[in-house]
């Protein structure tokens, strides 16, 4: 989920540490060519592929699978070039420790910003092509013929002249000894057979029978369980606790202080740990933040809407002068609240610490960052640490942080030799988050006498994620991620040509920590821009689609997705009686997205979202079936936020603690989603996040069409709108 601007992506610099003790790889020594072997002894053919004698093809996946399907898409790309039998493909994660030992042979591990495929497509395809060339060369050597006379299909290599055949499993040993070629050509996209195909996911079977082990399910011999509470006021500290009150409780082994702000109970079972933790008298030093109320936050952001100073993210012409001289001026203020990630699997990590080794098992969106956190918290060098990545029960950006890994190691360090599984309660998850940032926007437009948009000023006020998490990535103090979807160019560019445009940001950072939340800043920016565009169209009595189209002729890809949803929803034909439509478009993560909604809303506020049409142009669409699932799935996440999602502060702490107060959409509220995957080729955009952002403005614009009411603060539940 992490939106990261193009420059300076690395936050964790990997040293050339000694081979870690967790390394499951062996090297054939001491003479002859070096063959690297997987843990089961099968040879590596290049770093991305291991081939077993039974023809199984193991494809290495560095990015994390958290439900978004990246594992399947990445495997498709390797397999496309490898020309292997897809039915024999399986995957494995090389550990972050192996990555350090092998000088980042698998590239970046971080899984956020919808980057899994769009930023590794080239080197993973090259990995597949490299292995294919080595395997063919091995067969050619055996037959003593030129490799150019051999071809491969479905893992079977054939020599044209003689008709001889062999298979990948048979030549893998010999191939592993061949020096990898340096001149590797990739297929022309028109020759792709597997990329672009909606194949089933590779990781489903164990998810329907209870066999899939998530971090929360992990069992290790002698393992104890920990439950934790950190100071509910961000920035506060742990003052004291009365261990004697719980020391005798069943199963309790130890009560430990964790850093300077948390306390954990370690017990034989998690239920015992949690029960004792709930009974433990704890005194917090809340510090000055304990007095902060939601109204203070609102006031802080409101002040920024008219502040003199602001960072300029996009400027064309002179918007202020043009506004002053415009025939008609329209103004509206919007606000977007904090959101909690609430991945279905609460955060957890298991750590085993000894004086010369520290191992961690966890679901993480960033294995390298988890390894760095392990090293730091254990005080051991990176080469003596290892992280074993587990499947994530959801991430949405939250598991890009390693705070829970740090805590698990801090606890384990106080009980050397005993594996400790730290599991957060849902209450801890919701109150110790890194929340979708809160912002407001004052939108001001100037129109000429004919209703043409001549000036637009979007003043954003509010929180910056980068200033909290990666201050080194600020550009002279400015957070470029704030302008996602408003940018002049690049992966999140605005789709309208406005002769006088100003988009600026008054950074206002409350004490609540922000984080990357699926879609990040396009969630609110799409609402601000697309609902306001709708306001302008209605104010000037123009059709919302036609009004947009006029401003989009220089943005053909934005326009294409917008037109696609308009066509499919039947924009030019009237909707069924009592049904109303709304439309929106945006860009994020290098992909163009649009949505149209059909809703009905009665006078008691009962809302039914009947149908949504979504269009996504990610350039190359690697697996359209999985992209459709990302689109409809992300709509659940985005519409849950629109309908219910709001995190608020009282006495410096978060008020919402569980799904009863931070609600999530159910199947009865799910619209039918018709997804158009319209990859136009020639570029690589993300798919996990971009489309989420157009769901809310499309629905809001439809609500306006139905009621004439414009809602500008969220969630909708605060306006007494409920799903029917």
């Amino acid at each position: 989920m992490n939106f990261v601007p193009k420059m300076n992506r690395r936050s964790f610099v990997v040293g050339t540490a000694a081979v870690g003790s967790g390394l499951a790889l062996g090297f054939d020594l001491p003479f002859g060519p070096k063959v690297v072997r997987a843990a089961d002894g099968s040879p590596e053919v290049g770093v991305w592929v291991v081939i077993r004698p039974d023809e199984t093809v193991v494809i290495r996946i560095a990015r994390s699978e958290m439900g978004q399907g990246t594992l399947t898409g990445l495997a498709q790309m390797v397999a496309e070039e490898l020309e292997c039998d897809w039915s024999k493909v399986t995957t494995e994660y090389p550990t972050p420790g192996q990555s350090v030992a092998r000088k980042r042979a698998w590239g970046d591990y971080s899984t956020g910003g919808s980057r899994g495929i769009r930023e590794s497509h080239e080197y993973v395809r090259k990995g597949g092509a490299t292995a294919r060339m080595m395997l063919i060369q091995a067969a050619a050597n055996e037959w003593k013929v030129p490799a150019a006379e051999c071809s491969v299909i479905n893992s079977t290599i054939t020599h044209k002249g003689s008709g001889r055949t062999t298979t990948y499993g048979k030549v893998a040993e010999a191939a592993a000894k061949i020096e990898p070629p340096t001149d590797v050509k990739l297929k022309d996209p028109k020759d792709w057979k597997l990329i672009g195909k909606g194949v089933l996911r590779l990781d489903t079977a164990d998810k329907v029978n209870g066999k899939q082990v998530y971090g929360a399910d992990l069992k290790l011999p002698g393992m104890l369980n920990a439950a934790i509470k950190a100071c509910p006021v961000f920035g506060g500290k742990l003052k004291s606790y009365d261990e004697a009150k719980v020391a005798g409780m069943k199963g309790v082994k130890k009560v430990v202080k964790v850093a300077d702000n948390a306390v954990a109970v370690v017990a034989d079972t998690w239920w015992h740990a949690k029960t004792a933790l709930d009974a433990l008298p704890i005194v917090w030093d809340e510090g000055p933040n304990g007095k902060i109320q939601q109204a203070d936050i609102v006031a802080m952001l409101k002040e920024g809407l008219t502040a003199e100073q602001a960072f300029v993210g996009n400027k064309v012409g002179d918007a202020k002068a043009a506004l002053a001289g415009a025939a008609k001026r329209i103004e509206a203020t919007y606000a977007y609240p904090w959101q909690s990630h609430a991945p279905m699997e609460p955060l957890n990590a298991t750590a085993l610490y000894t004086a010369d080794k520290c191992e961690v098992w966890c679901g993480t969106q960033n294995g390298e960052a988890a390894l760095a956190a392990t090293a730091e918290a254990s005080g051991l060098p990176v080469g003596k640490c290892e992280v074993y990545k587990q499947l994530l029960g959801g991430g949405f950006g939250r598991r890009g942080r390693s705070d829970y890994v740090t805590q698990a190691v801090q606890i384990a360090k106080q009980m050397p030799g005993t594996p400790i599984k730290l599991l957060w309660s849902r209450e801890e998850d919701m109150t110790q988050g890194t929340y979708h940032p809160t912002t407001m926007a004052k939108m001001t437009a100037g129109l000429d006498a004919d209703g043409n948009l001549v000036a637009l000023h979007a003043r954003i006020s509010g929180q910056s994620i980068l200033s909290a998490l990666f201050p080194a990535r600020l550009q002279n103090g400015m957070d470029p991620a704030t302008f996602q979807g408003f940018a002049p160019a690049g992966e999140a560019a605005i789709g309208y040509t406005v002769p006088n445009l100003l988009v600026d940001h008054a950074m206002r950072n409350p004490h609540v920590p922000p984080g990357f939340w699926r879609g990040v800043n396009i969630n609110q920016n799409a609402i601000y821009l697309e609902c306001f565009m709708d306001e302008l169209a209605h104010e000037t009595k123009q059709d919302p689609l036609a009004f947009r189209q006029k401003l989009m002729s220089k943005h053909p890809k934005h326009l294409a997705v917008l037109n696609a949803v308009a066509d499919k929803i039947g924009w030019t034909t009237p909707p069924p009686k009592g049904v109303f439509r709304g439309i929106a478009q945006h860009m994020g993560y290098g992909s163009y997205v649009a949505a149209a909604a059909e809703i009905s809303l009665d006078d008691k506020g009962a809302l039914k979202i009947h149908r949504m049409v979504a269009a996504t142009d990610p350039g190359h669409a690697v697996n359209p079936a999985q992209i459709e699932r990302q689109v409809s799935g992300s709509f659940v996440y985005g519409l849950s936020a629109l309908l219910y999602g709001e995190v608020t502060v009282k006495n410096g702490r978060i008020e919402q603690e569980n799904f009863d107060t931070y609600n999530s959409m159910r199947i009865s509220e799910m619209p039918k989603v018709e997804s158009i995957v319209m990859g136009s080729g020639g570029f690589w955009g993300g798919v996990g996040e971009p489309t989420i952002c157009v769901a809310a403005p499309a629905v809001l614009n439809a609500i306006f069409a139905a009621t004439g009411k414009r809602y500008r603060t969220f969630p909708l539940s605060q306006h007494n709108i409920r799903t029917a």
Partner: protein
Amino acid sequence: MVKLTVNGISHDVDVEPDTPLLWVLREQVGLTGTKYGCGVAQCGACTVHVDGVATRSCSMQVSDAAGKQITTVEGLAVNGAMTKVQQAWIANDVPQCGYCQSGMIMAVTALLKEKAKPTDAEIDAAITNICRCGTFQQVRAAIHAAANA
């Protein structure tokens, strides 16, 4: 000591009688297919069958389950043969992260026992599990597929 019958096997578990069934299944019986998502009967990740009725095990005391037939997701397949629901889940590529799906499958299995061919409205009324990945569109398709299999 509480006597529990889980997937046809009886267990004597040494726990406090007010321990939630969910945690006894996960920590004493050792079946981790049943998930913890909220602990307050909101999300349905912990759904099991108690005497055939879909039940949120985080909010049932283990003592109330004593002597009853408990089925977890691990107990659905008989001799390794997947149920229609499990097969439909695979054919429709339903799970994303998969964490909610044990509970989802248990809730759907109970629904289909009661109503062999549920309408969309009956699905809406019966299936109230949370899925943060948002697999509802595929869940609905897979329910109809299982009903018609």
